[in-house]
C-alpha cells in the first residue's frame, strides 16, 4: 500500500467512524440514562434520511430540509417516549426488546406507505459539491469532510452539555442512581423525555446528513443498527466517550480490513468486538 493510499484510507476510516459515532451516541445515551435499549434506533436514522429526501423535494433547500427534519424527529421522540417508552421503565429487558422491535415493523410499514420502496437519492448541496484532489486520480469530496466536521462538532457539544451544564449533571446523576435523583425532587420523567428525544434526534440528524452520500432504501435502518450495536458494546453501554472511541476503532478496522484482509473483512469488526470483550468484558469505558 503506498503512502498516499494509506493516507486516503485513513481519512475514509475516520470519516466512517465519526458518522457511526453520531448514530451510536443516541443509542448509548438513552441506554445509559434510562436503561432502555431502543432497538428502533436504526429506524430513526432511516426516518431522518427519508424526511431529508421528502423536504428537499418540497423546498429545494438542503439546509431548510435538515432543520425541519431535525425538529420533526425531536417531536417524534417526545411523542414516542410519552406514549410508549414510559410504560417500559419498571419492566424487564424482554418487554423493552419486544416493544422496540415492534416499533421497527411499524416504522418500516409507514416508510413503505408514505414514500414507497424505490431507492431514493438526495444530491449533495451545491455549495459543498467541490472536491479536493488527493492523488492524480482520486479526489476527496468536500461534503464528506463537512460531515466529519459536523460529527466532531456535535461530539464537542455533547461533551460540553454533559460535563458543564445542569442538564448534563442531571443526566450523569440519573446514570448512576435513578432513585436518588427522584428522591431529590427532580422531575425524572421530564428528564427522560428530553434525553430520549435528544437520542432519537441524533440518529435522525445522522440520517439527514448522511443522505447525500447514501442510498435511501427500505431496510437501511436495520443495516446501520448492527454496526451501532458493535460500537456501543465495544465502547461500553452508556458511555459516550466509549461510543466515540469505539466508533473510530470500528471505522478504521472495517476500512483497512476491507483492503488488507478482504476474505476476513466481513468478520473483522466482530472479531475486534470479541477481542475487546475478552480483555474488558464491560467494554472500553463502562459507565
Amino acid at each position, binding site marked *: 500500500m503506498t503512502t498516499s493510499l494509506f493516507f486516503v484510507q485513513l481519512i475514509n476510516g475516520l470519516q466512517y467512524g465519526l458518522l457511526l459515532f453520531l448514530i451510536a451516541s443516541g443509542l448509548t445515551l438513552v441506554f445509559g440514562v434510562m436503561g432502555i435499549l431502543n432497538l428502533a434506533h436504526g429506524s430513526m436514522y432511516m426516518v431522518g434520511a427519508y424526511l431529508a429526501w421528502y423536504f428537499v423535494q418540497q423546498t429545494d433547500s438542503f439546509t431548510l430540509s435538515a432543520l425541519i427534519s431535525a425538529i420533526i424527529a425531536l417531536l417524534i421522540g417526545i411523542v414516542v417516549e410519552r406514549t410508549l417508552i414510559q410504560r417500559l421503565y419498571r419492566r424487564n429487558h424482554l418487554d423493552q426488546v419486544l416493544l422496540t422491535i415492534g416499533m421497527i415493523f411499524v416504522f418500516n410499514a409507514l416508510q413503505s406507505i408514505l414514500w414507497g420502496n424505490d431507492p431514493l437519492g438526495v444530491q449533495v448541496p451545491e455549495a459543498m459539491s467541490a472536491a479536493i484532489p488527493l492523488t492524480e486520480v482520486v479526489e476527496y469530496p468536500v461534503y*464528506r469532510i463537512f460531515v466529519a466536521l459536523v460529527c466532531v462538532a456535535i461530539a464537542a457539544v455533547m461533551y460540553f452539555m454533559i460535563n458543564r451544564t445542569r442538564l448534563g449533571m442531571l443526566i450523569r446523576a440519573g446514570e448512576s442512581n435513578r432513585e436518588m435523583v427522584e428522591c431529590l425532587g427532580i422531575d425524572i420523567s421530564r428528564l427522560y423525555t428530553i434525553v430520549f428525544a435528544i437520542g432519537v434526534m441524533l440518529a435522525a440528524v445522522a440520517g439527514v446528513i448522511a443522505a447525500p452520500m447514501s442510498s435511501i432504501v427500505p431496510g437501511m435502518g436495520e443495516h446501520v443498527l448492527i454496526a451501532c450495536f458493535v460500537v456501543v458494546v465495544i465502547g461500553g453501554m452508556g458511555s459516550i466517550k466509549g461510543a466515540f472511541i469505539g466508533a473510530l476503532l470500528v471505522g478504521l478496522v472495517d476500512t483497512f480490513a476491507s483492503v488488507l484482509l478482504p476474505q476476513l473483512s466481513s468478520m473483522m469488526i466482530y472479531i475486534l468486538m470479541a477481542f475487546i470483550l475478552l480483555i474488558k468484558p464491560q467494554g472500553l469505558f463502562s459507565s
Partner: protein
Amino acid sequence: MENNKKFLRTLLAAAVTTTLCSQALADNAEPIKVGVMLPFSGIYAALGDAGRNGLKLALQEHADDLHGRQIEFIEMDTEAKPEKAPEIASSLLDQHHSDFIIGPVHSGVAMGMIKVLKDKDTIMIIPNAGANAATGPLCAPNIFRTSFSMWQPSYPMGRVALDSAYKRVVTMSWNYGAGRESLEAFEEAFTAGGGKIVKQIMVPFPKTEFQSYLSEIGSINPDAVFVFFAGGGAVKFVKDYDALGLKGKIPLLGSGFLTEGTTSAQGPSAEGIRTTLHYADGLDNEVNTKFRQDYRQMFGKEADIYAVQGYDAGLLIAKAVDKLGGDISDRAALIKAMESTKLLSPRGEVSFSKAHNPIQNIYLREVVDGVNKVMDVPAAKLEDPARGCKL
C-alpha cells in the same frame, strides 16, 4: 297441508340445485391459479412490486387469450429471504394448488424454490433471479425463466471493452452468486480477447461502504472498471464513484442493473455510464412504447426491466393458455406450448432455449439525460450456453 309442505320443500331444493349447477356451468372451469412469490418488503421491494405490476398488466391486456378463464392471484412476500422459500413454495403448491408459480427476484430464493418445485405438478416462471443454475444443472421441464441468466447481460460487455481498447480492467461486485457469475461472464469474454483482469474486488453482501475499495481502484488506475450492483447498492456505488473523482478519469462499465430503476436517485452521477442489458427504457419499438405508456398510466411510475420481465411472464401464460384453448390440465402439453411460444416483448422478440431461458438481444446502453439510450446491439439473439443442463 303435508303435501303442500313437501311440494314446497322439493321446489326449493330443485331451485337451489339448478342455481348452483348453472353457476358452475357458466364459470366454464375453475380459475387459473397463479401463485406470486416476490419480495414486497425489504431492500428488493421495488423489484417485487414492478414484477407483480408487469404480470398483472399483461394478464389484464390479454384476458381474451384466456378463453373465459379467470385468474386467481395468490401473493406471498418472500422478503428476499432464501430461508423462507421452501415454506412459501410448498404452501403455494400443496395448499393452494397453483397452476403457475411466478417468482422470485433473489437467486438464493430461486434455489430454495427449485428444490421444492422441480418436476412437480406446477409451472414455475422466474421473472428475475438470474442464477445460472436455474437453467443450468438444476434445469427442469416445469421451470421457465422470462428474465435472463447472470451470464447473458455481462458476457457481451467483454467484447465491448476489447473494442474500446481497454487492456487492464478491475472488476467489482458483491460476494454472492449473482455477483460472481456476472463478473465471471465478463472475464470469460474479456480474457478470451487478450484482456487482463488486474484485480477482482468482492465486497461482502450487502455492504454498501465502498470508499475503501474505490480508493484502492484509484491507486491501481486501470483502463476501465466493470461492476455488478443493483438497487440501493447501485445508487450508492455510482454516486460514490463520482464523488471520489473516478468518473471521467476511469470509464465505468456495468451489467445493466447498475442503471435500472436507479437513474433518478443517482442524478447527474449516472450520465455517460455504459451498460449491457437485455432491455433499455429508451428502446424504440411499438410494443415498448405502448407498454411504457400503459404502465405509466396504470401505476403512476416508469416501467423498468423488472416490470418487463413480469409482463413477459404474464404474456407467456396468456399465449400458452390461448394455444391450448383454455384447458391447461395436461401439463406436458402446456410445457410444449410454452416452449414453442415466441413473445413480442417490449425488449424485442424473445424465444426460449431448450433449457427454458430466453433467447434475446443484448443492448449496449448509455445514460443520456437520465434515460438509458441504446447505442448498439453487441449480441443479437444471445443464447445462454446452459452448461450442465440435461434438457
